[in-house]
């Protein structure tokens, strides 16, 4: 058979064109969707797209009629739109398919494809597009369909509906920092002549400068508003936090300065006040580092689509998940998630419950059996009948479990708050003590001493040491692919005494299983047939085989049949290819030379070509090279537990390689994992959970520190406190050590700051705290603490030999 057909690649998406290739204007397209985009771009003379790059992996699927109808629903619309004023509305869509600069160009030109869209702006790092449109001329539905038709299917899931318009603390924080910096610099300039001239300054100039300083210190109070607010909150909640002595100090500084300037008795402390706020806010900015591409707060709702196909008579319609009623018939396609508990209405189906149970091997289900929400359907389209509303479905109940609610209240740094308690009490004691000491001798001196103590004791060094040291540690971690949700996680990691590992995907490599072929030698042609046959199946073993044979060519399949639970039967170039279970491939009378017993602990997939048995692929999950070393190293200092959702097939390998004090539990359902952690926490253990899959989400949430492990940080990850790239999992012991050292650094800087305060107290109590001394002492203490913490943490990071 000489069929020298040259491989054709789609002009639009770069994919290999298979049988259904369409030719137009001398160019090839893999599907009508790609052709549609091409024509669309052609009409608008936007073909430049094809000069810029090959838009790989953006192969659009044709948008189905009515797919986005649910976006016309008023309730959904209201939640998605950022605003809607005078007929103009703004919406932000998340488009995971944004990959390159060509995407930006194409997307920002959609204003030319739909005149109702007034402005489209892409944020590349967030993979978002914000669209301003006129509601009379176009609609959310039309825009979503347009985006999908050009290959950027908006990601719409249940979690989108809960997002409130993002509050941007960052903006107001930066503005406040700007104001504080402006005031600090100006007041310093106004104060310098006074300090340098030492009394030789002309009277009118001196008074003028003092008033100017006072005026410039008023905006500083606005910059300090966050501290006042949280001080008031903590007083209301009857908690002593660091913000209370801070606010007291700020108010004392301002009132004292106003008094001195307005009564022409002294220069005031405006410069110290502005400097203090500047450093405090600088610390706040420093401790915040956002990783745009990561998302830490996902819960199960992010995995549910917003709409699903419902059967209505003979027709199919798209319906929002919240509108599904009991008794509706839904159509679930390959790789879609079952939105709510239902009953299977088709003969058979294969469901992947790994989201719910953690078991990675799909489960077969028969007609009439119950299916729980959260299961992912694999295979050809099936119909299911709804038996429960989304709100009462299994997943929703599992998640809305009281266990997970209210668990994580606002977490403020434990250490600094503990210190603040003692500190505040100490300061108040010293201040009142000084006042009582002087009050009988000199009432004016007593007042001076009282205020001076509040001013000088202002715990700026205390308040800035945590943000700067944790912030530095967070930056070091991110360099080595451990991304923390915020800086306080550093302290939580340092507190951990128990570490729990999930097995699959964390200790083993989920995607890359070790695979080898044994049996009769196969030709290159035969391997390429096997690859082509395996390509069409979504079974994990087929995927492994397909990946293993990725260097071989793809062939066009003439006939393809996947027999449920048995294997694949395909015809390629008139050759019959069968891949599957041993019992299915080999009939009883078939004598083969493969000894089954030698592969007992591995999964074997057998193949036959033209009814001749050839051999088998052996597939076993491979442990990451460093897995055992890390666990053994950690088990010396921590209690280490391995929880696995899988069957105890690997128990032997694990016991052979791992210290005896490591506990192992198999066949753990997500709820079991969650309860296991809860029990440990009841024993006052601080638990760190290291896991990857959705099935670990509950455990990650429940643990004190949840670390989600992922192959690719831009992939989706379950909600967690930290995201760790698998390539860095061998750094875990070093991360733990650095966290501990960082907390030590914080304690050291507290000691430093207390020394400064002791010096300050001696000046204050004797009534000798002049503005010059305050202006030197306060910035000096702040700067030295900042320098100390950053240097110490950086050096710690380097000595830990993070590679």
């Amino acid at each position, binding site marked *: 058979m000489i069929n020298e057909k040259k491989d054709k690649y789609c002009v639009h998406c770069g994919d290999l064109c298979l049988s259904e290739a369409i030719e137009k204007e001398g160019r090839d397209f893999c599907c009508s969707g790609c052709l549609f985009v091409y024509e669309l771009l052609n009409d608008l*003379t936007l073909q*430049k797209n094809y*000069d*810029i790059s090959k838009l790989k992996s953006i192969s659009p699927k044709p948008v189905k009629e009515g797919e986005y109808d649910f976006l016309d629903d008023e309730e959904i619309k209201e939640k998605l739109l950022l605003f809607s004023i005078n007929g103009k509305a703004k919406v932000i869509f998340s488009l995971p398919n944004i990959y390159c*600069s*060509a995407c*930006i*160009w194409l997307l*920002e030109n959609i204003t030319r494809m739909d005149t109702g869209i007034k402005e489209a*702006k*892409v*944020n*590349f*790092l*967030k993979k978002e597009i914000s669209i301003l449109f006129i509601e009379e001329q176009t609609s959310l539905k039309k825009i979503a369909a347009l985006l999908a038709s050009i290959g950027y299917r908006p990601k719409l899931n249940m979690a989108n509906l809960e997002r409130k318009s993002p509050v941007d603390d960052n*903006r107001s924080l*930066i*503005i406040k920092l*700007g*104001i504080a910096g*402006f005031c600090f610099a*100006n007041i310093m300039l*106004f104060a310098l002549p006074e300090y340098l001239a030492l009394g030789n300054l*002309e009277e*009118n*100039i001196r008074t*003028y*400068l003092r008033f*100017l300083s006072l005026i*410039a210190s008023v905006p500083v109070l606005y910059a300090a508003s966050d501290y006042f607010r949280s001080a008031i909150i903590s007083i209301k909640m009857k908690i002593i936090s660091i913000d209370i002595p801070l606010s007291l100090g700020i108010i004392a500084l301002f009132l004292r300065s106003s008094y001195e300037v307005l009564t022409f008795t002294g220069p005031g402390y405006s410069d110290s006040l502005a400097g203090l706020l500047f450093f405090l806010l600088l610390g706040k900015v420093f401790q915040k580092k956002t990783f745009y591409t990561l998302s830490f707060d996902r819960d199960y709702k992010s995995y549910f689509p917003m709409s699903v196909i419902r059967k209505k008579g003979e027709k199919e319609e798209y319906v929002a998940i919240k509108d599904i009623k009991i008794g509706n018939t839904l159509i679930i396609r390959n790789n879609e998630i079952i939105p709510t508990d239902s009953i299977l209405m088709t003969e058979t189906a294969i469901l992947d419950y790994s989201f719910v149970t953690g078991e990675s091997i799909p489960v077969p289900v028969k007609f009439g059996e119950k299916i729980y929400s959260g299961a992912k359907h694999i295979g050809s389209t099936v119909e299911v009948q709804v038996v429960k509303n989304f709100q009462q479905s299994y997943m929703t109940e599992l998640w809305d479990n009281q266990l997970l609610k209210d668990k994580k209240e606002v977490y403020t740094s434990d250490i600094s708050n503990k210190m603040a308690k003692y500190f505040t009490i100490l300061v108040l004691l010293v201040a009142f003590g000084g006042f009582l000491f002087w009050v009988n001798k000199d009432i004016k001196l007593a007042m001076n001493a009282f205020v001076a103590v509040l001013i000088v004791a202002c715990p700026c060094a205390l308040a800035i040491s945590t943000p700067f040291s944790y912030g530095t540690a967070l930056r070091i971690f991110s360099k080595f692919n451990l991304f923390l949700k915020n800086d306080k996680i550093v302290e939580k990691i340092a507190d951990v005494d128990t570490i729990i590992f999930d097995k699959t995907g964390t200790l083993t490599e989920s995607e890359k299983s070790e695979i080898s072929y044994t049996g009769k030698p196969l030709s290159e042609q035969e391997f390429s047939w096997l690859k082509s046959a395996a390509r069409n199946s979504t079974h994990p073993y087929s995927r492994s085989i397909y990946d293993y044979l990725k260097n071989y060519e793809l062939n066009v399949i003439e006939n393809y049949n996947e027999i449920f639970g048995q294997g694949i039967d395909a015809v390629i170039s008139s050759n019959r290819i069968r891949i599957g279970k041993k019992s299915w491939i080999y009939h009883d009378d078939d004598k083969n030379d493969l000894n089954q017993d030698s592969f007992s602990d591995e999964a074997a997939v057998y193949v036959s070509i033209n009814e001749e048995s050839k051999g088998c692929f052996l597939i076993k999950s491979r442990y990451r090279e460093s897995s055992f070393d890390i666990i053994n190293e950690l088990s010396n200092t921590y209690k280490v537990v391995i929880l696995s959702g899988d069957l105890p097939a690997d128990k032997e390998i694990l016991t052979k390689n791992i210290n005896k004090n490591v506990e192992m539990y198999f066949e753990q359902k997500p709820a079991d994992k969650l309860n296991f952690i809860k029990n440990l926490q009841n024993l006052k253990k601080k638990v760190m959970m290291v896991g990857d899959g959705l099935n670990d989400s509950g455990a990650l949430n429940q643990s004190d520190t949840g670390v989600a492990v992922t192959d690719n940080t831009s992939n989706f990850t379950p909600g967690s406190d930290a995201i760790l790239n698998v390539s860095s999992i061998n750094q875990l012991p070093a991360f733990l050590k650095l966290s501990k050292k960082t907390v030590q650094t914080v304690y050291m800087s507290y000691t430093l700051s207390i020394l400064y305060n002791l010096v300050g107290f001696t000046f204050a109590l004797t009534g000798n705290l002049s503005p010059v001394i305050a202006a030197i002492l306060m910035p000096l203490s702040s700067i030295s603490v900042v320098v100390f913490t950053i240097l110490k943490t950086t050096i710690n990071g380097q000595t830990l030999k993070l590679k």
Partner: protein
Amino acid sequence: MDVILVLITVSFILAAGFLASFIWAIRSGQFEDDYTPSLRILLEDKEKAESR
């Protein structure tokens, strides 16, 4: 020497002007996305270039 008072006042007001423009720039979202514009500049508009 009194002229220094005038100079100080003027410089203070000028600096306040800069502060105001800084606040405006932050509020208008100019610093929200500091990456995409660097890519945008790479895409020149072919049509305009041709019609020249």
